[in-house]
């Protein structure tokens, strides 16, 4: 490593130091949750979590475990700061986004603490770029409180099966309706657009469905504009789990395999639209 952990002569250690041989392992995941300019970062001994929220209705989290990094050290239990995600992504991809085989951008990230900027050292082909991004006061975030005991229905699907459906969603529809049921139609995605309604049904025996645990028939509607950004996470992922709780809150968890075959997760939580939850 050409860069040392701490600049010589400084007394305070950095609260957060992380090194990554391939910055794409971080940037691609951050892109999957980039639907707002700002994000809140949480660093713990387990790794990094980046959270983006919109309209107090939808929340996306990208998890990059400590094991993904070549070096990951935090000096406090949780290090939190708010940052401009658009700027962070621009810096991480400062050497360009196209990936030539064999070349990658190395990253070193340092954060001294409250009030200090996030320092990024990026290197590719002998060229080094230093970025300093101002951080802000972390904001209160929603807690969807989605634990496994509260889950009513759960389906695990191969992402392949949903990708086209999400890409072709009728965006003239204001909502996307999700029906999960132990009986027909089992799993249905519906839109109600200008042309009429469209329903996408997955049979529970479908080869695309890896796990089907539906206990109750639930039909919930979610604002399509809030869910559409999850298409990016879906595109990167190999598997997705769809879960709903008794209130109709939706949890989408995407399992993403990075270039080195390591597993990361992105999750989206969404509130149902105007509490139109029909128990049929």
């Amino acid at each position, binding site marked *: 490593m050409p860069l040392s952990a701490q600049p010589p002569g400084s007394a305070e250690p950095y609260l957060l130091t992380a090194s990554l041989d391939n910055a794409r392992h971080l940037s691609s995941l951050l892109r999957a949750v980039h639907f707002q300019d700002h994000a809140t970062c949480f660093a713990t001994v387990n790794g990094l979590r980046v959270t983006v929220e919109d309209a107090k209705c939808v929340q996306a989290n990208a998890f990059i475990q400590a094991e993904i990094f070549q070096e990951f050290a935090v000096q406090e239990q949780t290090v939190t700061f708010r940052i401009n995600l658009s700027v962070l992504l621009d810096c991480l991809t400062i050497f360009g986004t196209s990936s030539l085989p064999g070349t990658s951008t190395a990253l070193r990230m340092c954060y001294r603490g409250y009030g200090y900027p996030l320092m990024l050292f990026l290197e590719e082909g002998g060229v080094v770029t230093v970025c300093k991004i101002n951080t802000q006061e972390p904001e209160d975030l929603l807690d969807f409180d989605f634990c496994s005991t509260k889950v009513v229905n759960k389906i695990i699907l191969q992402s392949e*099966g949903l990708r086209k459906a999400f890409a*072709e969603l009728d965006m003239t529809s204001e909502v996307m309706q999700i029906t999960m049921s132990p009986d027909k139609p089992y799993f249905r995605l519906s839109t109600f657009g200008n042309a009429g*309604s*469209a329903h996408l049904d997955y049979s529970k*025996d*479908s*080869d695309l469905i890896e796990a089907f645990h539906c206990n109750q028939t639930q039909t919930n509607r979610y604002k399509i504009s809030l869910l559409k950004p999850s298409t990016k996470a879906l595109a990167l992922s190999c598997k997705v789990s769809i879960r709903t709780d008794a209130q109709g809150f939706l949890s989408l968890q995407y399992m993403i395999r990075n270039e080195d075959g390591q597993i990361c997760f992105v999750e989206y939580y969404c509130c149902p639209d105007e509490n139109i939850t029909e128990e049929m």
Partner: protein
Amino acid sequence: MKCIIGGGNVKVLGRAVYSLSRIGEELYLEPTESGLSLRAINSSRSAFASFLFAPLFFQRYEAGGPQPNTELFRCKVLMKSFLGVFRSLPSLEKTAEKCLILLKPQLSRLVVQLHCKYGVTKTHNLMFQECERLQAVFDTQQCASNLRAPAQVLAEAVVHFPPTLAEVTLRVDPEGKISLRNYVEDEAEPSKTMVTELWMAKDEFQTVAAAPGSHITFCLKEFRGLLSFAEASNLPLSIYYDTPGRPVVFTLDDTVLEVTLVLATLSDPQSNSQPPTANGVSHLPAPSDDFPDDLESYMIAMETSAYEESSRDPPSPTFPLRTPHPPNSDPEEGEEEEEEGSAVPGTPPHKKFRSLFFGSVLTPGGPNLAPTQEVLAEDSDGEY
């Protein structure tokens, strides 16, 4: 109407819809005893396309309702909506196993359901509008010239023209060589225009029964849609044309499918033409977009003026026959100039195409109003 399309034919239907989408904004569906007809017409009424799928094309085909005397229901849907069902043709090819189309007037929805691999079913409930029958009146038997070639020959020729090119001229020279040339307006500056001319060998054509020296100019953009369908289906393309100004008809024939494209053509500026100001027809307003309602009054007006015209026998440039039409004949193949441009000076240059006159199913007695349908079950939600 209920029909099921199996396996490989789903993509043929998808390609047909794509072809029709190059013509018009609305897709007309008409189930008949001889098959399901899908049609489209462009906004200036200068292009008409029809795909007739014979009952054999389907795994199952039921044209009408359960009662044998039920009037066969026809409707039109927004092209965008129907196209949305067949959005990605390559993946459709790979995953679609069956397509079901159900037209239930009482439900006021056209149901298009795709059964795909892996137990996935896509159901689209599309809103439709009832409509009058859409039919261009033409007669290929009356056309002086006829060409027939594998679609590939024309596709390979057309590729040399820029995608934005509007009009192209097909010409058969006195030696029988066939050429395609981009059409250049007379007013265009010679130094700024590029002319591309392509000659095709006579032996590449299966039939060349064309009047030597004949030529015809039509809109290339609208033709391309049919051409890509023809190429993909590997069917020979037949071209029927007559004198410039009369429509050109392109057809594709197959045992289970009949495709027709009728395009208006540019009339020859060299022919002894007279601006038809005395012609009562030229003062008629062009049919508005409110197609079914205005069409009746428009066509009644056409009929009336045609009778007047025949008694005066004006030297109309578009009619090759000099004899007047007998007063009780149906006004077939009448052409009507886009009169606004010629009447009002200073208007922007208008297309010199003549709009096709669309015959209707008007009974000789009078206008045929949409037959009243006996409502068996009231529609609880809105009409459309």
